[in-house]
């Protein structure tokens, strides 16, 4: 029996005349690891909601065709009935937990199945050990970090040992380490428990190496169903925005076939003699003159800077230090990225720089207005129509004139992000723009648009500071990277040096090339490989 079967399934949300899914037919077999890809609004989330029974039972709307999950038809059974065969994890971890403590959260789905107290206790213990959250069992859920919360939500989805697990961008709010860990956990469950996985994800480079198959949706239709390598080949011809950085690196270097992951890419490069087998996976520290150890940049005097802060500290009411004596200076037009794991203090730093929060110690000074775009663009939208938020000129500048009459909550995620940016940039030109995780849940096309906009701002003299986990964005935008850890800046260096010198805080290109040539983007890596090919080809 297949884990999931869609047969000519079509669906339209209530009040919508455009189908979100069209004549969809696909099968996921038991034990398969399937990735669902596609641009924003292509139908990925709707597909997962249809497989979990939320569509149409919870959302309403019109559906035709059939969806069978573990032998159970979604026509006869709603999400509750399907919960025994399919576990579901949606995007926002905050709304994915419903109980007060981690232990109660993990027990909840088991209790709902009418299991005995002993069986519930055993199930909770097993899933907690499997996901390494046993130490969290007594903790209230409102004290957990985003990564911990997402892991607990995954635990609740898996507690009843479903044969199929459905995940909608589960890593979008996690730092690279937590995101990678989550994918590895899924791989392990897939291999050890034989759980079939259907995972919708924008950052394909994170999960493609683990996938057996990739489904690509476009405008609600299944346009590609192939193994990862074949899918990347297809994407190169039909939807370049879905190519992973490693695939783009190979394309730039004129190599084929595109690799599904770092390991495969390195093997191919080694077989072509383009990568020294002994080359380290991380870059070697660049040579320096003896006796001159590298020091973090000192804050410049306020008069020369667009923004500067000295001795910035911030403590929580509990006494825990979030920031400890930070010195920072941003020059006009400078593009800087702040990186660090979840809870490192990135968002706090940005809020203090924007004047939303008072530091415990230290001072911030700026040349002009400091604009801040926070993580959730929806928080900025308070009017009933898009054109109520900003003027017609700004709408045109940000390419939003077509949706001027729409409700801000009805436009796509990328459009919402642009609208929020238009709001914070309206009025006097800011001397500094701060952005907190601006690419969360964004597809590559929308990301490209944001990158162009940030580069334009910088060219006009506005300093840009981006707090992000997205290494590809950092490589494309920033010229300088600050690495935050334990409330301190532990690295302050040019982007190429930071991103090619690590593993978690490295782009896929840098990981493929082992940091060689400090190449971080597919374009830089492609140029490096082509140069090597030329040298090798020379007599």
């Amino acid at each position, binding site marked *: 029996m297949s884990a999931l079967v869609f047969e000519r399934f079509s669906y339209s949300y209530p009040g919508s005349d455009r189908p979100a899914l069209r004549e969809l037919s696909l099968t996921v077999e038991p034990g398969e690891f399937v990735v669902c890809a596609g641009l924003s609004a292509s139908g990925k989330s709707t597909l997962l909601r249809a497989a979990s029974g939320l569509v149409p039972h919870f959302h309403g709307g019109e559906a035709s065709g059939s969806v069978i999950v573990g032998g159970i038809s979604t026509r006869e059974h709603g999400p509750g009935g399907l919960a025994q065969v399919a576990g579901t994890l949606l995007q926002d971890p905050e709304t994915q937990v*419903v109980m007060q403590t981690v232990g109660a959260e993990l027990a909840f789905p088991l209790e709902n*199945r009418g299991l005995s107290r002993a069986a519930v206790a055993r199930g909770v213990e097993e899933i907690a050990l499997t996901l390494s959250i046993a130490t969290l069992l*007594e903790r209230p859920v409102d004290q957990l970090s985003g990564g911990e919360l997402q892991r607990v939500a995954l635990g609740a989805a898996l507690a009843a040992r479903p044969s199929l697990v459905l995940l909608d961008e589960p890593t979008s709010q996690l730092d690279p380490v937590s995101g990678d860990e989550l994918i590895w956990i899924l791989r392990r469950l897939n291999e050890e428990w034989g759980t079939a996985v259907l995972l919708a994800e924008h950052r394909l480079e994170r999960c493609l190496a683990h996938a057996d198959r990739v489904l690509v949706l476009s405008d609600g239709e299944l346009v590609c169903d192939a193994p990862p390598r074949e899918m990347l080949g297809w994407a190169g011809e039909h939807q370049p925005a879905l190519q992973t950085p490693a695939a783009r690196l190979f394309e730039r270097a004129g190599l084929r076939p595109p690799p599904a992951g770092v390991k495969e890419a390195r093997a191919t490069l080694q077989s072509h003699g383009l990568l020294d087998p002994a080359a380290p996976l991380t870059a070697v520290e660049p040579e320096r003159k003896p006796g001159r150890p590298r020091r973090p940049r000192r804050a410049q005097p306020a008069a020369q800077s667009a923004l500067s802060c000295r001795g910035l500290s911030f403590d929580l009411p509990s006494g825990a230090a979030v920031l400890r004596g930070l010195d920072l200076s941003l020059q006009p037009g400078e593009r800087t990225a702040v990186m660090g794991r979840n809870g490192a203090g990135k968002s706090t730093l940005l809020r203090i720089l924007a004047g939303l929060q008072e530091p415990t110690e230290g001072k911030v000074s700026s040349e002009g207005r400091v604009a801040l775009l926070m993580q959730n663009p929806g928080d*900025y939208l308070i009017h009933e129509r898009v054109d109520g938020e900003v003027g017609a000129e700004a709408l045109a500048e940000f390419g939003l004139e077509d949706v001027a009459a729409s409700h801000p*909550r009805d436009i796509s995620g990328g459009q919402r992000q642009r609208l929020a940016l238009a709001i914070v940039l*309206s009025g006097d030109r800011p001397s500094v723009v701060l952005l907190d995780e601006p690419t969360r849940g964004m597809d590559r096309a929308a990301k490209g648009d944001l990158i162009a906009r940030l580069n334009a701002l910088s060219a006009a003299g506005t300093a840009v500071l981006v707090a992000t986990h997205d290494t590809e964005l950092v490589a494309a935008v920033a010229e300088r990277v600050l690495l935050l850890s334990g409330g301190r800046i532990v690295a302050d260096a040019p982007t190429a040096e930071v991103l090619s010198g690590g593993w978690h805080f490295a782009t896929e290109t840098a990981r493929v090339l082992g940091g060689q040539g400090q190449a971080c983007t597919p374009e830089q890596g492609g140029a490096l490989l082509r140069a090597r090919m030329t040298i090798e080809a020379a007599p």
Partner: protein
Amino acid sequence: MNAGSNSTVLLRARSSVCALYGFALVAFALAFTHPLILLAVAAATFGAARLSGVQRQLRGAVRFAIPLALMLAVINGILIRDGVTVLWRFGELPPFGQLDLTGEAFAYGFLLALRVVVIIAATALLVAIVDPDDVLRRMRRSAFRSALTAALATRMIGVLTRDARRMDQARRCRPDAGGSGRRAQLLMVGSVAAGALDRAVDVAATLELRGYATRVAPPRGDILPYSRADRAVLAAALGLIALLCVGVGVGLAHFEPYPRITAITGATELLYAALIVLTALAAPLIGERGRRR
């Protein structure tokens, strides 16, 4: 609620008996206006909170209640013209007509304020001692929709507080700070409400996905016998309910605010008030002593 093995009797007892206990205290404050009874319920409530280690939650609730209660006292004093002890005669004041400030109206206003504070404190005690997760589990088969609503409300408080804080910060990030005046405030409220609905839908979807709607019964052998803490709190709750029924039934602690304040306060009322306090505090006191032994 923290119901670990080291917690107090009211926190260890099952949620159904704790809810009964909390509701009994709230019912007293709703049923009686007599100041002595209200003070007795207040003493019982704060005493139980202190013995259970949840006095912080109560203090927070009372801080929130006091401005509301004072406002009520002042409004009653100004608008109610009953009472014979005239303190100030304003004369004709359209559209209210003849406006007299009377001692009875002010005294009754402050009594109403005390009542509001006691009701809010008793409700805060109820919220602090009842485990919402347990309520969700126990109610889902008998009152699915009520349990779903209660679960959503409980879960949403934290989520919405964080949402509102973020949205306020986003408003301050706008160059015009979101505008000013009543219209800007209304826009903000509308936006928060729309966000709350979105969030509530997401949490409700999660409940569905975890199989909440299946309403499967737990195995028969899994029903736990009543513990010592359960029995102690149940006895106190039933005692309070019996006292309430007797008090209301025989018309004890009679109180009339107008035209003159009449509050019968004899030995019966004093005994009745003492019994309320003793019955309410018996469970936490006796339960703890039994546990220490």
